[in-house]
């Protein structure tokens, strides 16, 4: 059972995509695992043949437990296990290769401090990293390669289906949201933002574009939210061990509804540094994978904040529940024509209600209010959002 996030101590195996005897390739999705961060497709990290599945669907096991055993290419079942791949579970038979990351310290690849730091920044699962040379120390190059592969890896494996899968998702959401309301002292702010200018700008921009290049209305908002977070860093990061740990990178967790219920909020990395076109490409990619039930372990990282755009369903505003250990969730409602007073006259303008739910341990209402003010300001100059 790989670790898919800092707060994960166990995961429930939902489904196997492989059976004993199947040949598997490194990076292939072999199982679906339910975690507190939603259902994740688990990729295998080496080539081989599945020997035995150790965990039945529906069973919850701790991080580090062996999910299955693997026979490495060129290896026979009778061959002795390599020391690096001793199964964590004592009762497990000798395994040629564990599906979960190797937990035995003896043969475990070491990682340089710089590489570890980079891996954390890029959201790369350290445990899943493999050095480029055998017995070598994992370097920054290895981390960068893994991050790149995570971005470009084609979606493989079959979709997890069935009521069981959605039941598991509800359990995960229930756990995370209950913890949030139990531990996080939320405060809530809302403000109406005139988005006439950004709406007109986007319409003109899309008129120039072919259908495949068009931007969704949410894209400039994503960029504005990410940029505003830079100015109010108390909202971007994690609450851990009794203290706020700000994040220098803005990894925008996009709340995306799943077909048939449930949601996940995987990160769009470095959203503040991406162009609107790049954000659109990333969002399209992410939504496609979420809807296909194909979020992958390598794509799950730690978003530093969540952005929820519930206007699609027609609500005016959304007061979000913070996803721990994050400290803020930004919400946007639907854009509607509303009367505004300008220079003593009532005029019709396009208006959206922006909300912020934030952790009072990490920030105060004054700073939260500043965030919404910055967001408003940025949205008045959409040409600068590129």
């Amino acid at each position, binding site marked *: 059972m790989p670790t898919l996030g800092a707060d994960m101590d166990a995961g429930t195996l939902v489904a196997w995509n492989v059976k004993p005897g199947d040949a598997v390739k490194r990076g292939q999705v072999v199982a679906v695992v339910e975690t507190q961060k939603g259902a994740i497709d688990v990729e295998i990290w080496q080539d081989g043949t599945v020997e035995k599945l150790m965990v039945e669907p529906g069973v919850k096991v701790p991080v580090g437990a062996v999910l299955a055993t693997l026979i490495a290419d060129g290896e026979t079942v009778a061959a002795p296990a390599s020391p690096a791949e001793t199964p964590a579970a004592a009762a497990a038979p000798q395994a040629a290769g564990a599906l979960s990351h190797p937990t035995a310290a003896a043969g475990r690849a070491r990682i340089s401090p710089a590489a570890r730091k980079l891996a954390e920044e890029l959201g790369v699962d350290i445990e899943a990293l493999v050095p480029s040379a055998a017995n070598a120390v994992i370097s920054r190059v290895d981390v960068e390669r893994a991050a790149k592969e995570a971005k470009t890896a084609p979606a493989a494996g079959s979709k997890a289906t069935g009521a069981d899968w959605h039941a598991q998702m509800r359990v995960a959401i229930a756990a995370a949201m209950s913890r949030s309301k139990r531990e996080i002292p939320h405060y809530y702010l809302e403000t109406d933002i005139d988005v006439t200018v950004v709406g007109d700008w986007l*319409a003109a921009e*899309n*008129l120039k574009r*072919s*259908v495949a290049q*068009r931007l*969704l209305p949410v894209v400039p908002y994503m960029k504005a939210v990410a940029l505003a977070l830079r100015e109010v860093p108390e909202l971007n990061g994690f609450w851990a061990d009794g203290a706020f740990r700000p994040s220098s990178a803005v990894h925008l967790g996009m709340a995306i*509804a799943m077909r048939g219920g449930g949601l996940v909020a995987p990160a769009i990395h470095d959203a503040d540094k991406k162009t609107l076109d790049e954000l659109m490409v990333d969002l*399209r990619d992410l939504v496609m994978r979420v809807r296909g039930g194909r979020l992958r372990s390598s794509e799950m990282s730690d978003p530093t904040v969540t952005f929820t755009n519930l206007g*699609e369903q027609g609500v005016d505003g959304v007061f979000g529940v913070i996803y721990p250990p994050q400290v803020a969730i930004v919400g946007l409602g639907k854009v509607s024509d509303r009367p505004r007073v300008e220079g003593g006259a009532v005029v019709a303008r396009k208006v959206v209600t922006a909300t912020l739910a934030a952790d009072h341990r990490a920030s105060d209402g004054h700073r939260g209010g500043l965030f919404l003010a910055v967001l408003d300001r940025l949205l008045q100059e959409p040409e600068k959002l590129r």
Partner: protein
Amino acid sequence: MKMRTRDEIRATFLDVLAAIAPEVDPAIIAPDKPLREQFDIDSMDFLNVIVRLHETLAIDIPESDYAELATLDRAVDYLVRRCGAG
């Protein structure tokens, strides 16, 4: 360009819709009710429908015409008009 009949265009539209939103069942669509109220279709899905229609029917649907695709009946009418079919 090959001329398509109204039935072919309707079938194409339903194919595109089902490819984006798997729960779409042509047998249960109310042809005069907004598709987005009947199925779980958001703006990203809708944009993908527009992109696929562009690919399969070779027509460029401007944003200002999106409302024309709100229901099955209206969408087929619109696409027939745009494709010059009868």
